[in-house]
C-alpha cells in the first residue's frame, strides 16, 4: 500500500516555483534511494539463454511477437519515476513509484502467481516469486522491493518531508 501524503503535489509545484534548487535536490535524493532497488530488480531479469527458447524474440511471429522476451529490453523496462502521474479512476495520483513497463518483463515478473507454478511455461522460468501477498509477488521488481525491506520507501518519504521542512524554513512557513 502506498503512503498517502496530503499536499505533496502542491509541495512539488511550490518547490519548482520558489526553490528550484531544493526541488532538484529532492529529486536527486529520491533517485539515489530508488536506484539500488531498480538495479537489484534488473539483476533478477534472466539472460536469454535461461529463458525457454520458444519465448525468445525471433522465435515468435505474429501477435505473440509483441510479448516475446528479450533480456536487454526487459531490463530497460524496469525503472523509477518521481513526477506525479495522472489520477487513476479512484482519484489517486502516484508521486513516486517503481515500474516494470515491458510486456515480457511483466510476464516474467508475474507468471504463475495466481494459477500456481504448473503447466508447461511457468515451471520452466528461472527465479522464484517473492512478496508478502499475491498482488505484491514477483520475480524481479517485487522481489527486489521485498528484499529492500522498506528501507527505500522510508528514505523517500523522509526526503519528501525534509524538503517540505526546508521549504517552509526558507519561505517562513509553519
Amino acid at each position, binding site marked *: 500500500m502506498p*503512503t498517502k*501524503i496530503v499536499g505533496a503535489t502542491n509541495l512539488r509545484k511550490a518547490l519548482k516555483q520558489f526553490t528550484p534548487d531544493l526541488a532538484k535536490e529532492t529529486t536527486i535524493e529520491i533517485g539515489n534511494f530508488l536506484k539500488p532497488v531498480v538495479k537489484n530488480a534488473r539483476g533478477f531479469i534472466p539472460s536469454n539463454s535461461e529463458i525457454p527458447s520458444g519465448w525468445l524474440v525471433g522465435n515468435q511471429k505474429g501477435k505473440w511477437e509483441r510479448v516475446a522476451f528479450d533480456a536487454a529490453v526487459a531490463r530497460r523496462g524496469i525503472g523509477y519515476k518521481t513526477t506525479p502521474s495522472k*489520477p487513476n479512476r479512484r*482519484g*489517486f*495520483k502516484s*508521486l513516486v513509484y517503481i515500474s516494470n513497463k515491458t510486456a515480457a518483463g*511483466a510476464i516474467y515478473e508475474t507468471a504463475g502467481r495466481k494459477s500456481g507454478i504448473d503447466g508447461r511455461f511457468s515451471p520452466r522460468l528461472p527465479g522464484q516469486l517473492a512478496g508478502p501477498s499475491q498482488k505484491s509477488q514477483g520475480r524481479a521488481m517485487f522481489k527486489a522491493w521485498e528484499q529492500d525491506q522498506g528501507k527505500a520507501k522510508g528514505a523517500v*518519504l523522509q526526503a519528501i518531508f525534509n524538503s517540505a521542512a526546508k521549504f517552509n524554513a526558507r519561505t517562513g512557513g509553519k
Partner: protein
Amino acid sequence: MADLRIDIASEFVGAKAFKQADTATSALSKQVTRLAKSYLGVVGAQKLMRAQLNAAKAFAADDKAARVLSRSLDNLGLAYADPAVKTFIADLEKQFGVLDDQLRPAFQRLLTTTGDVAKSQSLLKTALDLSAASGVDVVTVAGDLSKGYVGQTRALAKYGLGLTQAELKAMKFEEVQAKINSLFGGQAAVAVDTYSGKFNRLNVAIANANETLGKGFLEGLTAIGGGGTQGFDNTLGFIEDLSQAAAKFQRNFGVGIGQFLAILRGDFAAVKALGESAGKSAPFMGAIPSIQTELNRKVALDRIDQYRKENALQAKLLAAKKAELKAAKEVNALKKAGTLFDAEQTAIVAALKGKISEDERKRLELQLALLTGNSTEASKLAGELGKSQGLSEKLVAFLKDLPDAKNPFEGWANYLNAIEAQVKRIAVGGTTGGGTAAVIGTSMSNGNGMFDPTDFLPAMPGGKLGAGFNTPATVVVNVAGSVLSEGELVDAVRNGLINSSLSGAGSLVARRTGTFATL
C-alpha cells in the same frame, strides 16, 4: 496492459468526474432555485391576475344574464315577479346543481313562449327532469318544450316518449307534459345524489365563488376610484393616466440616454435636437397600445378564420370536382368495355384489318369514330374523306371530258367482209380438178418479198392464184415421181422443211404486219 508498479507515495486529488458532477450539481441547484423563485413569482402573479380577470368576466356574464332576464320580465309586464324568479333560479341552482348560466336562458325561452311565470317554472322543472334523463342540456330541452308548447312537437320525439308523431300532434301539450312527468319525473332529484350530481354541485359552488370574487374585484376597482357610480370610471381614468405616465417616463428616459451619449460624443446639436423632438412628439392617435394590440390580434384571428373557411370551401369544391371526374372516368371505362361486344363496331374493326383501299379505310374509321363518340377523330376523318371525295369527283370529270380512243381493229371489218364474200364466191364457183397448187416465184405480190394475206385471197380477176382456184371444190393432190402415196408426200414435205431449216436459209418475219419471207 496495465504496467506493474510499486507506488511509494500517492495523494488523493479526487476524481475529475467527481468535481464535474459537483460543479454541475451545484450550478443546477442554484439555477433551479432561481428559476423556481422567478417562476413562482411571475407565474403566481400571472395566475392571480388571470384568475381575477376570469372571475370578473364570470361575474360580468352572470350579471348580464340576470339583467337580460329582468328586462324580459319587464317587457312581458311581469316585473313584479323578478325577485321571485331570481329566488327560484337560485334555489334550482343549489338544489339540482345546474348553473344559473343555463337556467336563466332556459327560463327566458320558456317565459317568452308561455308569457306566464308559473307555467314557465313548471316547464323548467320538467325540462330539468328531461335533461337529467336524456343527457341533453337544459337550454336545448327548454327550447324543445317551448316549441312543443306552440304545437311543434317534432323535436320532442327524440326524447323517446313512446308516442308517434301523429299522437304527439293529436295530444294537447298539457297531456304531453303529463306524459313526460310520468316518464321522467324526479330524474333531476335522483341525479343530484349521484357522484356526477355532486360534482355538478361542486362546480356550481366554485362558479358562484368565482363570480363572488369577480364581483369583489370589480367593487375593489370601483372603490379605488372613490366608489359610487363614478368610481369604476375614475379607476379606468387612473389606469389610463398611469399608463400615459409610464409611457412618458420611458420616452424621457430614452431621450435622456440619447442626450447623455450625444454629450459623450460632443455632439451638442444632437442634444438640442433630441430635447426639442421630445417636446414636440406627436400625440398618440387611436387606441392605447394594449387595446390596439388586442384589436390587431382580433383582426388577424378573424382573417385567419376567414382563410380557413375559404380553404375548407376550396377543398370541398376540389373534392367534388375530383368525384365528378372519377365518375366520368368510370362511365367512359364502362362505355369502352361495352364496345367490346358491339357487333357493329366489331364488324368495322374486322373490316379495317382486311385489305382495303385508303378511301375505304377512311370511311370505316369515320364510322368507328362516330360510333365511339370520338368527335375530334370523326371531324378529322370527315375532313380527309371530303378532300378525298373531292379529288375523286375531279378525276371522274376529267375522264368524262376525255375524247373517245380510236378503235385499232376498225379496219378488220373490211377484211372479214372480203373473206366472207370470197368464201361465198368459191362456194358458188365449184372446184377445178388436176390443178397444181403452187406458189410461183419467191417474191410476194407486194414486191418486197414479205408475206401479204391478200396474196392468199381467192380469185379476184387478175389475181395472183392460178385459175383453178376460181372454183371452190375439194382439193385433190396428185402425186408423181417418187411420191406415190399420201404418207410419202407428208414425209417428203417434212423432210423438205427439215432440210430447209438445216440449210441455213434465212427467213424474215414481220409480226406487226403479219408477213414473212424467205431470204
